[in-house]
């Protein structure tokens, strides 16, 4: 009787432990296809090494109209885009850049700014951050 009770006890413990296992702990790793024939790509994948980036620019209300050249470059300084831009205007500039790029450099007038790319967007404001 005592042995039977111990058996049921251990069985119950084992059942509790087994039911606590999550599915992910029991699955086997997914292996990559070895050939293109076996490969199934995602519906949204379009087989390019470029990505769309939307650069949003916020204007600064100015005391007098201020116009200068806005240039957008890759981080290494390579030119992508230039336009004459009025400083108090907002703008959206749509670019296509290599997927490996993490930031853009903007030049307005004689000043250069570094702008990070996050989730296919980059944000720049002419309104400065007050430091004191």
């Amino acid at each position, binding site marked *: 009787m005592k042995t039977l009770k111990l058996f049921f006890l251990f069985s119950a413990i084992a059942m509790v432990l087994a039911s606590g296992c999550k599915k992910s702990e029991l699955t086997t790793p997914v292996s*990559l*296809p*070895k*050939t*293109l024939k076996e*490969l*199934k*790509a*995602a*519906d*949204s*994948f*379009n*087989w*390019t*090494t*470029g990505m*769309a980036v939307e650069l949003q620019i916020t204007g*600064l*209300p*100015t*005391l*007098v*109209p*201020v*116009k*200068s*050249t806005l240039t957008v470059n*890759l981080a290494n300084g*390579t*030119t*992508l*885009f*230039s*336009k*004459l831009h009025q*400083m108090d205007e907002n703008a*959206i*500039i*749509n*670019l*296509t*850049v*290599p*997927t*490996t790029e993490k930031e853009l450099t903007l030049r*307005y*007038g*004689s*000043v250069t700014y570094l702008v990070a790319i996050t989730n296919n967007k980059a944000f720049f404001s*002419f*309104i*400065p*951050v*007050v430091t*004191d």
Partner: protein
Amino acid sequence: MKKLFLLSVLITLVSFSESMAQVTLNCESGNRAIEQGNCWGFAQATYTGTPGVPITGSWSLQSGSIPGNSPDASWLKTPWMLVSSGNITFNARLGGLTGTTRGIELFYIPYDGNNPPAYEGTPVSFYSYNWPAPGIITPVMAFVVPVPGAIANSAAVYKIRVSFTGEGGLAPIISDDFVFPGLYWSDPANGCIPQAPVQDSDGDGVANTDDAYPNDPNKAYNSYFPSATQAGTLAFEDLWPAKGDYDFNDVVVDYKLQTVTNAANNVVEVNGAFTLRATGGCFNDGFGFQIDGITPDKICSVNGNSISHVTIYSIGPNGLETGQTYATCIVFDDSHRVLGLCQGNTEKGAAFSPYVTLNVRLVFINNGIPAPGGVVAGSQLTPAVFNFFIVGETLTGQVIGNVQPTFQDRGKEIHLAGRVPTSRANTALFGTRDDDTRPGEGKYYKTANNLPWGVNILQGFDYPIEKTPVNEAYLHFIEWAASSGTAYPDWYSNAPGNRDPSKIY
């Protein structure tokens, strides 16, 4: 000669179409950052909108704590100005109960070209006032301070600094309604240095230093895709709608686009450099691009492309293909006529055909006159609208000896994955053989497993040798595709472990 001299030194203030006779600050923006962006300076002085505190309106300036009676601790500074004669005026009062002394001191600051980045010289005091009895909240005082003769109406630029001084206690100085006689002379686009005359030889409003065409009023800027210094590569399989061998060398074209815009940011022309490097396919393929969303009447002319006088393509008077909803440019109509025969430049050891570059120019505005359809804004002509494709061949159905003749088939367009066809595509081919195009779902030019017939590598691409699948030449290609581009984003590069060089041409 005199006229030439005057023309050659045409100097305009291109940034500033108007200046003010007064420079004022009323704090009503409620945001010092906006003022700072307009070249005002603040130190230990913030905007307060606490009810009952502002002198006028909703906001006033409030000094911070004032240690040791220094005029350098808490202040407001104007932008660079051409100061005129007259009076500097503002309102101020004390805003607290405690303090030993409180005062206001005014300085003018000359420009010093040897002192970057602020270029400020030594401040010179020209006015001071001390409240006689700090310790009470005083009524508002109206300050009227004559501009010192040393700077009034000078051709030199100055800043005016209003310093808030005092010792002991916490009572701030509240101030508002600043008026400084003179002209605003800072340049927010150039680090707030003083405005400087700029040369604009063609008078288009773009300074010579920024103008890629300083003597042409109809052109100003160059934009590039993929970039000014890097050509991308388009690599196609040409057996669509059937799958090929995935060596992606049937047609290999390097491309670099330069978009020229004017000072109004409208497109003047697009210059495309297209270099045909390989014709691994045995079809006489054509190659071109549609500019999605841009109608053909927006383009004046096309030149530099290679179209034979006997061709399956119908080219209109402006050089674009006829019968198209959107502007479609055929860059070349026959890859083998341009570069060489079947398997051109895809087999090591075989004869090499020198690459052929076609410099194609699409003119949108000709000498300042737009095409009949009107202008195209630079913001419309993003890289994403350039929709590249090749045009393949179809078997005639005959068999002559061991040969199955083919003919160029205009309807057999082969686009990059996800791109829409032109009006001349034979949509009856969709969903046949290995193609799984479903226009209603937005799926174009992919197989059932979403494999493509073309790839676009912005960084340039060394293609595989004949009949070598791309994944055997580029060892992380499958991981890149399986991860939707997040794994091995540089699979195409020559980084260690990326390539089997024996399988790359």
